[in-house]
Every structure is written in structure tokens, then in C-alpha cells.
């Protein structure tokens, strides 16, 4: 149904449904950021957008991929891929005095010594890290 160019313009249904999911807002913001960046590399086609997605970002990568496929329609990114690098949680452990991972998001303490972790160094990323340009 979304096959022909004219059909595509009329095809809107799942958009409203998916808007309930915050990943679509994120996907649309990714396109905004990438469009701005693309202007600096005019003439080059963008083949992929690279992201860093932290484990505490509140964004699910699978849902974001689906949302991006919707959001990219009728933009300059129609055939562009999204490459997601998932960033694990890293905290500063006050007892070990160094960077550590945590047991889990449900058990937010140093993975080595179990000291409760309050200082998050990494894991909140929601960042466009790079663009892959065509040759």
C-alpha cells in the first residue's frame, strides 16, 4: 500500500499510534540533528547515522529502530541506516575510588564491592555520534 509514490503520500495510519511511544519523538529528533549536520557535508549522501544509547537513557533500541523506519519516510534519510551502540552503565565507586560497572539497573551498586552507587559516569547517553557518508 505504501509502494507507489502517490500511495505513500496518503499513507499515514500507524503514525498516530506510534506517537504514543516516545521512541518516535526521539527518532524525529535524530532526523532533525542529522539534517543540520548533513548541511555541512552538502552533496554527500548519508548512508548511516551512528548513535550512542545509554542503558539509562530510557530508550529501547528495538523500538527506536522501528520508529526510525517510520520517521525517515519522505525525508532525505529514506534509505539511511541507524547504527546503535549500546552504552553500559559506568559509575564512580566511592569505596574502590575508581570506575566500575553496576550489578544491574535494579541493583545499583558497585559490581566489585556492592557499595551503593550514586555517581553515574556513563549510561545516560542519547547522542548522535557520527554520520557515515557515501564515497
Amino acid at each position, binding site marked *: 500500500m505504501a509502494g507507489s509514490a502517490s500511495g505513500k503520500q496518503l499513507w499515514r495510519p500507524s503514525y498516530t499510534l506510534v506517537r504514543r511511544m516516545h521512541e518516535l519523538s526521539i527518532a524525529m529528533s535524530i532526523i532533525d540533528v542529522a539534517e543540520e549536520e548533513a548541511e555541512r557535508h552538502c552533496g554527500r549522501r548519508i548512508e548511516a547515522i551512528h548513535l550512542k544509547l545509554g542503558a539509562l537513557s530510557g530508550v529501547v533500541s528495538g523500538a527506536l529502530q522501528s520508529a526510525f523506519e517510520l520517521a525517515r519516510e519522505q525525508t532525505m534519510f529514506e534509505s539511511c541506516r541507524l547504527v546503535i551502540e549500546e552504552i553500559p552503565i559506568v559509575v564512580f565507586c566511592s569505596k574502590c575510588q575508581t570506575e566500575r560497572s553496576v550489578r544491574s539497573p535494579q541493583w545499583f551498586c558497585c559490581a566489585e564491592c556492592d557499595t551503593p552507587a550514586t555517581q553515574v559516569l556513563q549510561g545516560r547517553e*542519547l547522542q548522535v555520534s557520527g*554520520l557515515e557518508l557515501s564515497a
Partner: protein
Amino acid sequence: MIAEPRIVEVRQNILKHNDQIARVLRQRFREAGVFVVSMVSSPGSGKTALLEKTLKLLRENYRPAALVGDLATDNDAVRLARSQAPVKQIVTGTLCHLEAAMVQHALEEWTLADLDFLFIENVGNLVCPSSWDLGEDLRLVLLSVTEGEDKPLKYPTIFNSADVAVVTKIDLAEAVEFDSEAAQRNIQAVRPGMRVIQVSSKTGQGMDDWIEFLVSQRRGA
């Protein structure tokens, strides 16, 4: 020779437009001396009841106001208007969270210098709102006793992003066999060191602690 695709480094926050607006809002709030609290929770956890009581109590000595996000109705705003404090509805339509631009727009007709406290009630949702900075000083997460003690473990991201937790409907704790210690343990597991305050908006239990906490936070800001 086939040229290799080239990767250029970008390093831009995806929500940079939201972050920029939030930064401007935070600056305006600070200059006007208004302390801003955002509220997140699941639907039906008692955000509006807590807010109604909070506005009423704060009005004795301060000038509080509220913005309430709701998907479709203005029921909450009508209910809160009874407190006599300025209240404005942000209808989000199908959007599942508030964004800084919506807050900015909603504040256009208000003079911030006329306020001491501003509460921003987010859409009832424990998943979506965590990524959007609204320029607030304090993010409050609510947990009602009827939801069960394990809610923090199911939604660690939003609990981890909050600054204070309020356990609501504490008057029903016994009836629903709410395990207060387990709740406290779970909150501390996902967000070590978080201050937890137990209240009943209905009976007023714990409300003094809550108001005192808000006032002290505002003083310290």
C-alpha cells in the same frame, strides 16, 4: 579503486533542542526565584490529589502554581483550580510525555516573578518522560501503596532519574498489605540515597514532612 565510506564524528545530543529550551527555562526560573518541581508516576498513583493538597498548604505562606499534562481531558486542571492557585492545562494529545517547549509555551501568559513554586505534573507514565529535561530543580517520582512494592524494580530508569520519592495513599497501606520496608529497600536498590517521604493526601499524614522538605529545598536552591 572504490572509495571507502567516510564516518564523520558528530557528538550531538539527540534531544539538544529540548535541552536548549530547558536550559533557558532553568535560567528564567532561577532569575525569577521560582522553585520548580516536576512530577512523574504511573496513572492513578495520586499525583493530582497530592498536588491539590500541596498547593493548598503552600498557599498559606507561598505563591505556588501548577502546569498539568494530560492526554485529553482538563479534569485535573478543573480539580486543581479549587486550590485557588494558578493552574494551567497542557493537553498532550497522543504524546506520552511533556517536552520543554510545551512548558515554555504554557508559561507565556504568566509572570514567573509572581511565583515561589511551580509544579509540573507530567503525563501519567513511568517509561517515556525520563529523557526530557523540563528545566526543573527537582524531579519527584510517586509510588502509591496500591501499586505494590516492586514498582521501582520494574521501572528503574525513571526512579534512577528522580531526586525524591513520595509514597502516596499511605492510609491504605494496611488494607493492601503494603510492605513499607520492602518498598524502601527497592527504592534504595535502584537509586541509592534517595529521600523517601510517605504521605496520605486524604488524611494529611506526612504532609507536614513533605511541605517542610519542599520549603527547605527551595531555600537551598
